[in-house]
């Protein structure tokens, strides 16, 4: 019976502190393994208690009392108390904070320690998402002594503790013998960083790696799955992959032109061509596995004839648009297919492959683009359509009105109905082309059990993993 596992990850984390960098690779190593927050995501996206054993919410929805577990220690041996929670939350929302998701803490008015194991958080306004927010990797609890050194020597409360980081190659974590909860079954886990898709395939085939939770080469997944040694595990993610359009720019500010583009796109061809069939078509910016999801695919059926008519109607001819493509394969391959599909309705595209840094500055930061392909991986992020300064520039009054109503609503069913309205609003206004929900296409050794199937957040939770043989 093996007690160690080698996990393949595509990207190496820049460092290991989840509270000061947006890189998903950090969470993929440390989330739930090394660091814990008050709450946490479960395998299917539900919010579970973590360091907080339980909590009370006041009637007005403004005060949260968290009861912490007893006898929790950090990996350096010091006790985890309410003061550490206060420190962590205050640090994240401070003026000079470099937390990448500061909005998670935006509604917090005050955090106080009632006693060693009780923390009270007061909000400025009710926030239905607060417990969800506290489950993010960016909201984990850290100790004041080690907060600054977590980048290279992470000290958390999790069931694994950091053992070794071989820059550029791997990070190793090992079982924390003093864990407060149920001990994990694995003795140690090694995360290896393999960006090259071919190398990833070779590493699996050579059994140098036991699992790739997010396998970078969908084209070879079927081969691995057919091999009796391995199995493919396909689940869902929170990544809505869209062809974003610059709603501010001519002629994309004309809804007819946007609709024309939407009808020019054949989603299935993109899913097949770029992702080799892995992915679920979406008709709006919402995860299909979410209870509030509304199927709006009919609004945007593939209909090139309609596209041409709409373009004619809008009086647009000989249109040439730039198409910025960041590095992931869904964008690069998908973009090529999109370009061909647009050409079929008479829209020429000029493909510009960009790096992430460039995409962030040029497209995301400065809004300097016509079209781009991107996957929005944050959970429940339809909110971005209400941001005035967001890169695709929608923020229509119709949307904002529903949004405000939603924020004041606490009843779950009513909330779901409003979320449906939001989805319909952006779909009917053809803000972007909603392509597909990114699949979590992973592969693993058949004997490895207890890994997550879905990815409600980007994490490699190994707490339940074990070897069947």
């Amino acid at each position, binding site marked *: 019976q093996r007690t160690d596992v080698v996990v393949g990850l595509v990207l190496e984390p820049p460092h290991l502190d989840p509270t000061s960098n947006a890189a998903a690779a950090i969470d993929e190593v440390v989330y739930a393994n090394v660091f814990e927050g008050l709450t946490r995501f479960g395998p299917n996206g539900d919010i579970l208690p973590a360091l907080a054993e339980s909590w009370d919410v006041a009637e007005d929805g403004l005060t949260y009392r968290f009861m912490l577990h007893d006898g929790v220690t950090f990996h350096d041996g010091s006790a985890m108390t309410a003061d550490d929670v206060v420190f962590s939350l205050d640090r994240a929302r401070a003026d000079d904070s470099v937390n990448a998701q500061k909005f998670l803490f935006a509604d917090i008015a005050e955090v106080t320690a009632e006693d060693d194991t009780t923390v009270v958080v007061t909000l400025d306004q009710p926030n239905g998402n607060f417990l969800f927010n506290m489950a993010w990797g960016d909201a984990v609890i850290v100790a004041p002594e080690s907060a600054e050194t977590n980048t290279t020597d992470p000290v958390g409360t999790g069931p694994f503790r950091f053992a070794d980081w071989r820059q550029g190659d791997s990070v190793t974590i090992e079982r924390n013998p003093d864990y407060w909860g149920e001990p994990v079954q694995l003795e140690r886990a090694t995360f290896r960083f393999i960006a090259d898709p071919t190398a990833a395939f070779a590493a699996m085939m050579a059994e140098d790696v036991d699992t790739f939770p997010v396998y970078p080469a969908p084209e070879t997944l079927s081969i691995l799955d057919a091999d009796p040694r391995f199995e493919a595990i396909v689940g869902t993610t929170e990544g809505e992959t869209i062809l974003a359009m610059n709603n501010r720019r001519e002629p994309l500010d004309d809804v007819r032109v946007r609709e024309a583009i939407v009808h020019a796109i054949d989603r299935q061809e993109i899913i097949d061509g770029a992702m080799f069939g892995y992915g679920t078509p979406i008709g709006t910016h919402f995860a299909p596995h979410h209870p509030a999801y509304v199927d709006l695919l009919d609004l945007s059926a593939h209909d090139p004839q309609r596209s041409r008519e709409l373009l004619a109607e809008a009086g647009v001819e000989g249109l040439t648009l730039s198409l910025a493509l960041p590095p992931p394969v869904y964008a690069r391959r998908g973009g090529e297919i999109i370009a061909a599909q647009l050409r079929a309705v008479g829209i020429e595209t000029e493909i510009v492959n960009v790096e992430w840094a460039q995409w*962030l500055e040029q497209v995301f930061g400065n809004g300097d683009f016509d079209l781009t392909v991107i996957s929005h991986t*944050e959970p429940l992020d339809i909110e971005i359509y209400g941001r005035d300064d967001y890169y695709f520039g929608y923020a229509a009054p119709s949307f904002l009105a529903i949004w405000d109503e939603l924020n004041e609503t606490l009843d779950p069913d009513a909330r779901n109905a409003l979320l449906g309205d939001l989805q319909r609003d952006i779909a009917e206004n053809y803000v972007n082309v909603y392509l597909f929900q990114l699949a979590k296409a992973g592969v693993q050794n058949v004997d490895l059990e207890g890994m997550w199937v879905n990815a409600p957040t980007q994490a490699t939770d190994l707490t339940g993993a074990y070897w069947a043989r």
Partner: protein
Amino acid sequence: MTRFLLCRTISLLASLLVASLVIFLVLEVLPGDPARFMLGLNTSPEALAALREQLGLTAPLPARYLGWLAGMAVGDFGISYTYRVPVADLIVERLWVSLPLALYALTLSTLIAIPVGVLAAANRNGLIDFSAMGLTQIGIALPNFWFAMLLVLAFAVNLRWFSSGGFPGWQDPGAAVRALTLPAIALALPQASILARVMRSSLIDTLDEDYVRTARAKGLTRGQALWRHALRNALIPVVTIMGLQFSFLLAGAIIIENVFYLPGLGRLAFQAISARDLIVVRSVVMILVFAVITITFLVDIAYALIDPRLRRRAP
């Protein structure tokens, strides 16, 4: 000799200074902001500003350049933006992979190239020569990532003799050498092909020299004349190429490092460029430039060792 060394050192320093300025300026015009890269899509402007301040990105250009230079002079390359560790540590760690890999590949390539080149030259226009040179032509023509991939498929995936990539560290030297073997072969083959061709043509040239005929007139056999007289003379261009190759192997291995996911210097630079970790990029490039210049310097000295005519350039 001291004069020679002094002159070389001054020109070396001048080159490095020019190089540092070029690198610094080039990286300044590179679009992309490290702070934004680190904080991602959902960040707030205040967090961005705070991080920029923390990283020292707000200081004026000349101040940053001079600060960097002054730091380098005392071996302090600064703190990596993304990794948050001293750049020097990062580089040293990567060098422990890149340097052995380059040396391994160079050794392999030399061990293959010199005998092949010598054999081919000794049997000029013969069957051995023809087939060896044909093979070297193919070796040169292979795109290296393609060849590397074929190696992985054959030796790691099918035969399972080697691991498909990665680097286990030097605690277990045997495993480390095994991990570097396939990458070294992938790197060495094209270099060996080039080197073998240089060796052959250089040896053919020297075999035509008068002193080889003199040696034969003394009663040396063809082989003795080749071995004792021609070979050492033929090594001079070979050493030049080896010097160039070493610097290439040190810096140009990015692609091979990617295919074998090795934590080498080239990949560090590549990753740092995409993360806009400019402080790492410029330090790595600087180190590589420094390495190349130093190697050129060493090759000059190697010349002097091989060739007495160069030993006393100036009294």
